[in-house]
């Protein structure tokens, strides 16, 4: 490695603990989200309470489900608008906390009995801090791949959208559907 190169490489860390963060989510592009869902063996989409107040999100979830067939776990009451739109979530009464606890358990058979999920995609959480904690739990204690396609960057996910303003955000969601 040449000296120039050494200086080009942004070496953020001396001792990772020293700066209090180990690793943050990689930014994921919409297309890649679509691809990952397709390639994954047992993916699941987990929706949050923001769907109760954001029709566009409901729209997106309905379309994604229709397009990819991905199962939906609805939390935070998000089942109601989805059911009204004809989607049947595979779970409705378990909070994100329960779902995360289950995902961590290697012996969980999933809601469909096919075994634990290999990819969990998260959307529509009104309270990003709740999702953030759950992603942290999944990062440290599970083998599940996590993608957050919420409006704010989620550092503890494996992959996340960056912080996006409203318009860009819906555009990004649309791009997932376009693939």
């Amino acid at each position, binding site marked *: 490695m040449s000296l120039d190169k050494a200086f080009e490489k942004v070496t953020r860390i001396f*001792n*990772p*603990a*020293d700066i*209090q*963060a*180990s*690793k943050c989510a990689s930014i994921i592009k919409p297309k890649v989200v679509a691809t990952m869902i397709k390639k994954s063996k047992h993916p699941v989409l987990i929706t*949050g*309470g923001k769907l*109760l107040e954001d029709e566009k999100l409901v729209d997106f979830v309905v379309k994604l489900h229709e397009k990819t067939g991905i199962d939906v776990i*609805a*939390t*935070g*009451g998000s*089942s*109601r*608008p*989805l*059911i*009204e739109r004809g989607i049947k979530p595979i*779970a*409705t*009464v*378990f*909070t*994100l*906390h*329960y779902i*995360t*606890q*289950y995902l*961590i*358990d290697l*012996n*969980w*058979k999933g*809601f469909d009995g096919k075994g634990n999920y290999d990819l969990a995609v998260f959307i529509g*959480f*009104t*309270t*990003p*801090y*709740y999702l953030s*904690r*759950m992603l*942290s*739990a999944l*990062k*440290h*204690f599970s083998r599940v791949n996590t993608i957050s396609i919420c409006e*704010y960057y989620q550092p503890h996910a494996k992959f996340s959208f960056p*912080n996006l303003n409203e318009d860009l955000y819906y555009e990004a969601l649309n791009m997932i559907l376009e693939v």
Partner: protein
Amino acid sequence: MVMDLRDGFIVLDEMRNVTIRIGKVIEEDEWEPMGPTPKPHILDLRYWDQKLLERYEPFYAPMQDFCNLCTMGPCELSHNKEGACGIDLKTQKARLVVLACLIGASSHTAHARHLVHYLVEKFGRDHPIDLGNNVNIEAPNVRLVFGIRPKTIGDLEMVLDYVEQELVRVLHTLHTGQEESYLDYESKALHVGMLDHVAMEVADIAQVAAFNYPKGDPDAPLVETGFGVLDLNKPVILIIGHNVLPARNIVDYLEEHGLEDEVEVAGLCCTAIDTTRYDPKAKIVGTLSFELRAIRSGIPDVVVTDEQCIRADTLRECSKMGIPVIATSEAASRGLPDRTHENPDVIVEDLVSGRAKGVLIRDPDKVGEIAVRVAIEVRKRKGRKEPFMGEEELKAEVQKCTGCARCVFSCPHNLRIDVAMQHAKKKGDFSKFKEIEPTCIACGRCEQVCPKGIRIVDVIMKSSLDQLKSKTGKSRAGRGPIQDVEIRKVGQPIVMGTIPGVIAAIGCPNYPRAREELGQIIEEFLKRRYIVVTSGCHAMDLGMYTDEEGKSLYEKYPGSFDAGGLVNVGSCVANSHISGAVIKIAAIFAQRPLRGNYAEIADYILNRIGAVGLAWGAYSQKAASIATGFNRLGVPAVVGPHSTKYRRAYIGKYWKREKWWVYDIKSKKKIPVEPAPDALLVCAETKEEAIVQLARLCIRPADTYLGRQIKLTHYIELSQKYLGCLPDDWHLYVRTEADLPVKMRDQLLKILEDEHGWKIDWKNKKILEGPIRQYDAGFNPTLVEHVYEKYTGEKIIR
């Protein structure tokens, strides 16, 4: 039994130079045989914790990937790695949970110690603990854990000795290089939670007994509550904190000097509650979320702080507004000079003139005079203050905003200040701030990062002042304990399940969204005739939740511990009356012995009493330890989403069938049961979700079919209403067709047949096959071997 002998010295003639101090007069009459675990030490109830933890698996959501607790670190523990001391991330997080609980329990213990110490000095060790005629079990937590019936204030000292000893022992275990298993730290957290309820009980019964608070009175007076209640024409003393002593002295001073009607006494946080228990003419301004606002408003003429849940910038903020501060506690001395023993005249003059920004007065009995005189004198010299922000100022502030959104990312709620600012700046329309206000906890973090130095909190307050002021109503003053007669009345319906549940709303104000959501949740359960109990900040916020006619729930629902009642027990320490009530159900209705008999009672509660806590906001270490104490007692809690930041939850897995079993004392068999409740601590994201979870977690294995039917009816109705469908797991709770809601019976039987493969005898509309277990009216469940052995007379071979 009154005795003349007091603590003191007896001089014995034969032994010169020796005096014998009589320490404690212990009443040894055998009111109840001693149970297996009086004054339990850390490991004594570990077997019970292991039962709980086996089912309710601890769940960890780290806030950080690191540990810095010793100088071998910092250690990077991501993916459950081990640090330099060998601890792994999970265990490290459990350790931090213990720490949070310890801080919480210590707060109540120190508070209790302070009160008891003060009361012993003032009223003597023999001052009786008399909670009124209807409260015979005066201290259920103390009886249960410590094993005595305290008769006098002095008796409480040894209880605190014990609690302190245990807390220190647990704190010791946090030293680097100890526990290897997170389960053992959890057991310690549960231990601390239990101790916390004992300490809270000591604190509250001491003050109720000594200060003549309402004694379990369902009709305790209504108290004015809200940001708009203050009479601004009078000098205003604002008291912030949790320890009533300085506030009491202020009220007394006013009365002694005939100034009650001249000066406005208003409280923030739990001190507000306890002050109004002492004097219902005092007013409640609000919760922690109103502290910065109350100061920034410039209204108070003097601010008095005691301890806990007071902003750590109180002096700085007050000084900016020119408000003098009187600190009164060793826990929050604010760097102020200790002027306890100085001449009040000098102190008053220093504070009024601004020469001193604040003082520390350690003796609560000296606070009254100084606070009152300062308030009156400040008002006299300065008159009524200008409003904290003019219209022009407001506009000027908003103009500064660049829309950089730094405030958004520092805000605990990610409130879109940037959008509101830009909207106001461009359109002159400040309405978006009104949308923000009910969610904003007025923490001021946004201001810390704003590069333009915009007074964001003030901007929000100014823009929504009408709205803020109009959220004004009435709370019922904290009534303290639940009466034994009330327990006698509701014990059976609760245990049978015909009162569908007890909802205990007992948390802090950092709600996920608008403050009114708490009221909406609670109203749903009051209408459905659950018993609702409340305390602390939730109790105050409920007082501000009013209908179109301006009536709060306290005015619409009775204050009795009965179906459809709304009971404000009091401040944080009064939470012990809620655990106490649950314990008393086991004691009074079921005649289970209390004394030193923790595991049996907790086991009874877990299996039979459909009580669930709700902490919609729960920010503090005290909340962590209170909830953990409820959990050890077998009471689950639903908490708001911020509470994920406590890092730990207790969540069982309904699908692990092997974990859901009990010993049945009747059939003498170990049998599978429905997963009810299936969590001890779980966060909900939205109010919709919280409502459904609360109903769900009220279900208990020992419900009669009628009770189960009622509980399931509510659960299913609420799920349909808020989730749009039947809940996923309703069938797990069905033991017999009689459990099913009457109106839906056919429909549900069909689903059981079609979707779950159960066998149904359609002629008789009977379930033939399917449920986890058969329903048996005499079902008598326990998880505890020695309880099983006691009641069956048989030994379990393990």
